[in-house]
């Protein structure tokens, strides 16, 4: 449960983030801090706005209000609400996976991982012109890309399936491939949207190992949406709980486990307690 290799500097500060869709307030004035090298979990009942927060952080939505400040370990600070679309991944190096897996089904596993290194390879291929002539520098870069892909295939236990179509993989393998693909973009922050959804207990344990490995060996900060409490409680250093777009708790897994507001949000409460807890939560 301890977080190895970490200083306490924040990697991502989400500050007063709100996201409105017409009259619906999906995320309401959310603030939290994800620390560098930590695994931060974002949990909450269905419809709490977790994926909306993810979509704001990864540039798929432009938030209505709020700041998201991403500090790279080595250089530069990025304000994610100003980077839209692919730039969050390209410049700020925030990688993500999707709740409903989005792989390039008709391409091989290896191709999926090489596509993820598009921007590096694009430069190496001289924006296609040098690559078209078959220059050595590009071939070298491509070999390096394949080596990196091979590394992550080994880590995710997919090396034997490297030349198979991504769409032909089993569900658990597809989930792992999506994480491998995200890692191939060299992220500083990895956002995982329900990586354990649909996995059995064994696969879930493997996933825990993989995420711990990424955190330990690559010092990548991870932001995680998860329903599977065995994953959340075992690997996360910090948990943020959302309910109806509002943050209701924020702390270590142990604190969250015993927080009455969280229990109320997840399990509901006895009738006589509704008023009391409701008042506490502020509903």
């Amino acid at each position, binding site marked *: 449960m301890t977080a190895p290799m970490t200083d306490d500097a924040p990697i991502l500060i989400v500050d007063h983030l709100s996201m409105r869709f017409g009259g619906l307030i999906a995320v309401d004035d959310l603030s939290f801090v994800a620390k560098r090298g930590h695994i931060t979990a974002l949990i909450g009942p269905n419809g709490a706005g977790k994926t909306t927060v993810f979509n704001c952080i990864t540039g798929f939505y432009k938030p209505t209000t709020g700041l998201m400040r991403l500090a790279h370990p080595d250089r530069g600070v990025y304000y994610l609400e100003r980077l839209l679309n692919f730039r969050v991944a390209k410049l700020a190096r925030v990688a993500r996976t999707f709740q409903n897996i989005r792989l390039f089904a008709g391409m091989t596993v*290896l191709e999926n991982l*090489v*596509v993820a290194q598009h921007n590096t390879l694009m430069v190496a*291929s001289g924006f296609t012109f040098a690559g078209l002539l078959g220059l050595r520098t590009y071939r070298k870069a491509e070999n390096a890309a394949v080596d990196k892909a091979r590394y992550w295939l080994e880590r995710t236990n997919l*090396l034997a399936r490297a030349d198979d179509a991504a769409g032909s993989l089993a569900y658990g393998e597809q989930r792992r491939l999506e994480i491998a693909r995200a890692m191939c973009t060299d992220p500083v922050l990895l956002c995982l949207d329900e990586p354990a959804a649909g996995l059995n207990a064994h696969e879930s344990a493997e996933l825990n190992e993989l995420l711990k490995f990424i955190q330990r060996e690559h010092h990548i900060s991870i932001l995680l949406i998860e329903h599977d409490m065995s994953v959340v409680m075992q690997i996360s250093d910090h948990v943020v709980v959302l309910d109806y777009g509002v943050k209701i708790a924020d702390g270590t897994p142990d604190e969250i486990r015993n927080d009455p507001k969280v229990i109320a949000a997840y399990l509901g409460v006895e009738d006589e307690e509704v008023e009391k807890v409701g008042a506490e939560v502020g509903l």
Partner: protein
Amino acid sequence: MPDKASHTAPSISVADALKDAALAALVAFGLFFLLIGLRSAQGPTGALEVSTRFTDLAMVVGAVFAGAFGRAMIFGRGPIRFGGEMPSWVAPTLAVAGRFATPALLIFALLVPVLFFQNRYILDLGILVLTYVMLGWGLNIVVGLAGLLDLGYVAFYAVGAYSYALLATNFELSFWICLPLAGILAAFAGVLLGFPVLRLRGDYLAIVTLAFGEIVRLVLLNWQSVTGGPNGISSIPRPSFFGLPFNNEDGGFAATFGLEFSSTHRIVFLFYLILALALITNWATLRLRRLPVGRAWEAMREDEIACRSLGINTTTTKLTAFAIGAMFGGFAGSFFATRQGFISPESFNFGESALILAIVVLGGMGSQLGVAVAALVMIAGFELFREFQAYRMVVFGLAMVLIMIWRPRGLISTREPSLYLGEKKIIPASLVGEARSGGSGS
């Protein structure tokens, strides 16, 4: 293979089959009663008279009855499923045939002018087929690789043709200078089309590209002062053999090489020219597939949102696909202009776009060999059926329907991976994304 049982054991009683057949015959009767059964013709007095053709009607209805009965007895009820139950030897045989098909076709193409030197008709047909092969390969970049359904490809063909014609007639530039210029102008037109359609996918994209094709044609038709309007541009310079004109004079090609003058020399030159242009298109496409930009096209066809999450700029990726596809269309267009010597907007109607798209879809989106075979079958086959006149379109339509039933994703619909660690495994068509409506648009 799903419901294999329904193929092998069609369990249907004769009575049921008769019932089905009777129903089909009834529908046929309703449909053809007015179409075939009654006929209006001018009588001796000049007035319209209605005559009946009930024997013809009975024959057609009878044929439908027999056909429906036979179908019910052989295939049972429900939709007929072809494919999926190929014998085990078919796939390997096809693979072997596929391996030899490419070199065989290439060698054949190289030898055509030697084999058919005396046969001008075959040479002209060969040039026509190769033009469509090149157009198919060019469109294949946009539709097959990038998954952007483009119904206005002929616009770029037109831009290339008019660029060459105008540059050559007004500035007397040679073919070899005009060719790249025409390509660049067509690519520019591609980017111009690309910008407004960046947010569109599938059917919406198809409609806008269709409109773009029509806009270009109408501009060519109405901009009289530049394009000559419906009169087109005539006396476009013929190509020369790197400066040597194909004529009967002393400085001509034949005299320089000590050959007897023959008007076929120019045709042979044109044949090799379009063959070279087509092969360059093919080479560039195969090369681009292995480069990041080509992989990004294919990834975009598979899932655009995932592309964005990986930091791929889908805007420039789409624009490069449009531009490069358009560029090859432009090359083909300038070849068309120099071959014909005369161009007019008539040559660039929607029918051409549809034909090129049909070649790509029929060949299998993304497959180079499939597109070449489809172009050969469609263009040469169309010519062979010329003697059938009116029935040509019927045969053509029937062939299209049958191919779409048997191979709904085209002749060669599997995908070859662009790189591999161990062995190259062919990806089955069912997994490969295609230029379809909806898809993964946001």
